[in-house]
């Protein structure tokens, strides 16, 4: 039990090391095996928590004693759920790598590396370590979009990198300020939480603002979102799945940690709520006229992130748990939508909504997966997203009144344009477009894994929620 975190990282490291050296036919399978093992370990941890109530445990190694920094990993219920989401989405992404047509070794390697950085980020309880894994995630995603992306990949990845560098610099500045101004001069999150009242208010709000802007660039929220359309669109299929599902949760997790570390006043929270509302409406209206299906879905992901923000800013415990539930559920649903959209791009060679028709005739599984993704994204009951919506908006209504229910209107508009795509492209079989490539049979397992996860957490929410209350 004590060493389970080290075992987790050992498995990850083994996966990353073995992928480049295994023969070409086996590298994807190697990565899948190790991801499966990691998934099993995480399930084992959850099982231990639910049945034997073992928590929290942390792993602490000496690192830089002069800076009072240790390598500190702590498993909290929140990190367990986010790690579960990471491993499910990574398995689905690995399953969606096409064996002969793509450079599978590079893609498997990068996805395993990204999985390492995500799991490290969600487990780390030390701000310096958090920053290290954050940077690792950025570099991995940059490589994914640049090397393995489609034609405009260079531009898109450079834009992403520039925005992320600004975000990381601000984040580093915030971390340094926290280090300087906490009396204990420590970067461990638990000491910061314990000492948060001792930071003087003026500098505390400056630190909060700096780090908030840093995370705002990453989620993304308006107005720092311009990287998102091109980055998600030019990424390869497995890359899009992983980026949309997990990378946006980096920023949301960061804001979550920010709210945990600092005390916030109601006026601060209302202003953050207004930022979230503006961002949601903005992205919904930009998305209506998109002609590129992945850009459209990227803006839909922005709307979902804004809704999760409402849960975080509400400030009460239901809101926090609802936001984590929402990260899990919305992450899975947007990953499913990007998986289907990436498959459509691979089948037809184009991402344009106008030209593609009758997807259901060429690949019924992709069509129905996309339709299910749309059902999930609009909050169908018996999917996890419905539970997340209820928890988030109830807590938002408690804290802010009717103001928190205004973003729910954006779901109507999201539904309107997504159903328009379905009726014009996915199901409309009057003049079917010819597909240029078929699909291999592994793709359907990726769909099934994500759909099963979405339905499972929708029908049995008490399992996830009891993880929260066990702490």
């Amino acid at each position, binding site marked *: 039990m004590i060493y389970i975190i080290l075992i987790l990282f050992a498995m990850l490291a083994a996966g990353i090391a073995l992928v480049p050296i295994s023969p070409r036919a086996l590298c994807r399978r190697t990565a899948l095996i190790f991801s499966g093992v990691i998934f099993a370990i995480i399930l084992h941890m959850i099982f231990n928590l639910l049945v034997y109530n073992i928590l929290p445990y942390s792993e602490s190694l000496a690192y830089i004693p002069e800076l009072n920094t240790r390598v500190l990993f702590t498993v909290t219920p929140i990190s367990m759920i986010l790690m579960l989401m990471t491993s499910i989405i990574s398995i689905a992404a690995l399953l969606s790598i096409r064996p002969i047509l793509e450079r599978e070794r590079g893609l498997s390697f990068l996805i395993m590396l990204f999985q390492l950085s995500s799991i490290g980020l969600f487990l780390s309880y030390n701000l310096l370590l958090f920053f290290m894994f954050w940077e690792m995630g950025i570099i991995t995603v940059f490589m994914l979009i640049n090397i393995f992306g489609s034609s405009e990949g260079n531009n898109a990845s450079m834009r992403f990198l520039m925005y992320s560098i600004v975000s990381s610099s601000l984040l580093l500045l915030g971390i340094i300020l926290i280090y300087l101004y906490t009396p204990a001069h420590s970067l461990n999150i638990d000491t910061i939480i314990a000492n948060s009242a001792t930071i003087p208010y003026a500098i505390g709000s400056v630190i909060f603002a700096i780090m908030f802007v840093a995370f705002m660039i990453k989620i993304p929220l308006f107005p720092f979102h*311009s990287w998102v359309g091109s980055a998600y669109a030019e990424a390869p299929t497995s890359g899009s799945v992983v980026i949309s599902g997990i990378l946006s949760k980096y920023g949301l997790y960061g804001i979550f940690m920010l709210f945990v570390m600092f005390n916030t006043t109601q006026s601060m929270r209302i202003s953050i709520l207004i930022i979230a509302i503006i961002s949601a409406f903005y992205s919904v*209206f930009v998305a209506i006229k998109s002609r590129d299906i992945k850009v459209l879905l990227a803006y839909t992901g922005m709307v979902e992130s804004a809704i999760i923000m409402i849960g975080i800013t509400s400030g009460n415990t239901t809101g926090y748990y609802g936001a984590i539930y929402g990260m899990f559920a919305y992450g899975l649903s947007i990953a499913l939508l990007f998986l289907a959209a990436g498959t459509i791009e691979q089948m037809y060679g184009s991402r344009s909504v106008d030209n593609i028709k009758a997807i259901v005739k060429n690949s019924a599984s992709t069509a129905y997966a996309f339709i299910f993704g749309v059902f999930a994204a609009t909050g169908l009951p018996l999917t996890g997203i419905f539970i997340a919506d209820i928890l988030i908006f109830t807590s938002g209504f408690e804290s802010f009144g009717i103001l928190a229910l205004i973003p729910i209107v954006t779901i109507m508009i999201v539904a309107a344009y997504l*159903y328009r795509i379905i009726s014009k492209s996915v199901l409309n079989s009057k003049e079917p477009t010819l597909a240029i490539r078929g699909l291999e049979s592994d793709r359907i397992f990726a769909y099934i894994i994500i759909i099963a996860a979405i339905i499972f957490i929708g029908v049995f929410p008490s399992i996830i929620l009891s993880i929260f*209350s066990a702490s």
Partner: protein
Amino acid sequence: MIIATVLFPMLIATLLIVLFKNETIVKLSAAIGSIASLLLSIYIAIFDRNILEQYKWFNLISYSFGISFATYLLNIILLLLVAIMTPIIVIYSIGYFKGKSYGIRRFYIEMLIFASAMMLFAISENLITIFIAWEILGITSYMLIGFWYDREEAQEAARRSITTIVIGDILFLSAIIIIFATFGTTEISGLINTTNKSLLYLPMILIMIAAFTKSAQFPFNEWLADAMEAPTPVSAFLHSSTMVKAGVFLIALLLPIYESLGLNYIFVIVGVITAIIAVTNALSEHHIKRILAYSTMEDLALMFIALGLFNIFAAMLLFIVQTFYKALLFMNSGVMMNANNDNSDIYKIHGLKDNRIIRITTIIGVISLAGIIPFGSFFAKSMISTSSNNIILYIMLLAIELLSSTYIFRWMFIPLKNKGASKLRYNKYKNTSNLMKAPIIITTILALLAPITLLFLGGVFNTYNMFGNLFAYVIDSIVIAIGILIAYVFFMSNTKIKISKNNILYKAAYNSTLINKFYSIFGNAFVYLSDFFNTIDYSILKTFQSSGMYIYKFGMRTRKIVNGNVNDYYIVALIGFVFLIIIFSFVVFGVF
């Protein structure tokens, strides 16, 4: 779980259909599953009345979400209606799909999930359970309207229906959230008995709008007519008998709250407007199923008017009777369309007078709809029109009754008048499979027997004095007879009556294009907003990019200092050295 077992046979049948591809197994399991659910519902209706079951679904700190089922009278009425209609429609559809084996597994999966969701809706006592069923009804309706993948109009109609319904869904979700956050419970009995009713004002308005979107009332009424692109069993089941009445049912469950909040007049106003729209459009429509869709819209509007006038008895009576005669008329129209090569224009449907069974059942259905005494909707409509003391409302309702009998007899007279007797068509009628005829006959019998429920319900809802309103009965009968006369004169007899196309009434009858223009104004507004925001997006991107460009250009200009010319370097170094000495002397010696 005793009540919820009504769903299990149909869900097991769905599972079997998913697993097996053999057509016979598919059809058999659908039929047996729906009949088994019928038997279970009858059992529950007789033996398990007035039970309330509450289950906890999940809880988080102080919030506890539950699912509850109940078998009170309203629930039993809807449960029995759905349970009776499902096997009838399933058997009809087995016959309907005889020539077309395209996607039959998909059809039955979606129909059975729909029927399960409808039964779940019928037995729910909790707003969350109702919402679960509500959304599943919406999505299965979407999949079934867009069932024929190669018809572009069907996909467009399905998209319009789901876009309208999602508006109601989201408003319903907001209402549930507000109710839950304020009261901590969403049990209907808890809401009715609460003391602080003023907090319920906003959620109840939101639920009212949600019911309007689902039941195709103004201004959300266009999707129902377009939804007739679906196959005929779908139209007979979803869009006449069950799904569209979900909104009415929801309002009926919550009626005591609306009563104490004083919001009932909205139902009457919206109902009257919708009824007028429906009636005028039905008079001018040529498509055989769209006329019936408008007639469904009119019936729903009458149910809302009845609920608005607090006459839940009349609303429920119309609810029950309408199920059967509407399904009957839709099934007959399916047979007529089949025999005429799927032609849906009533001016081109021939041969109604040849087939005796279809003719007789159609006549019975039409009589029930128009409400000739003592069939069908007569008692319900006269109760509705006498429910209020407002003379203007009474006259409007009488006018609606007149026009409704006109349009439905028009619907029947025009095909009756078309000549029949082509041998091919006669054979097609004769070869209508028994699987289509038997459900029609059963539904006819049910439609004839349905008004008898008046006697059963009367004792429970209120004591209705059947013979106290003879004057109203006489007036209604006269009005309906006038309607039939008008229809006969215009459409059945051989007199030619000319109405100029510029007649104002003629133009008013084609008013569905006005509402569509109203919708497209909204659509265009969204597109303009989207253009505007796209421009902003582009300018934000260009701002960030150009700031990068400025830095780059500044760097390019500054680079020119490094020009390789040693003389320039020497002079700059000398000047810099002099400055350094001056500054150094200021700092160290304080000389100026």
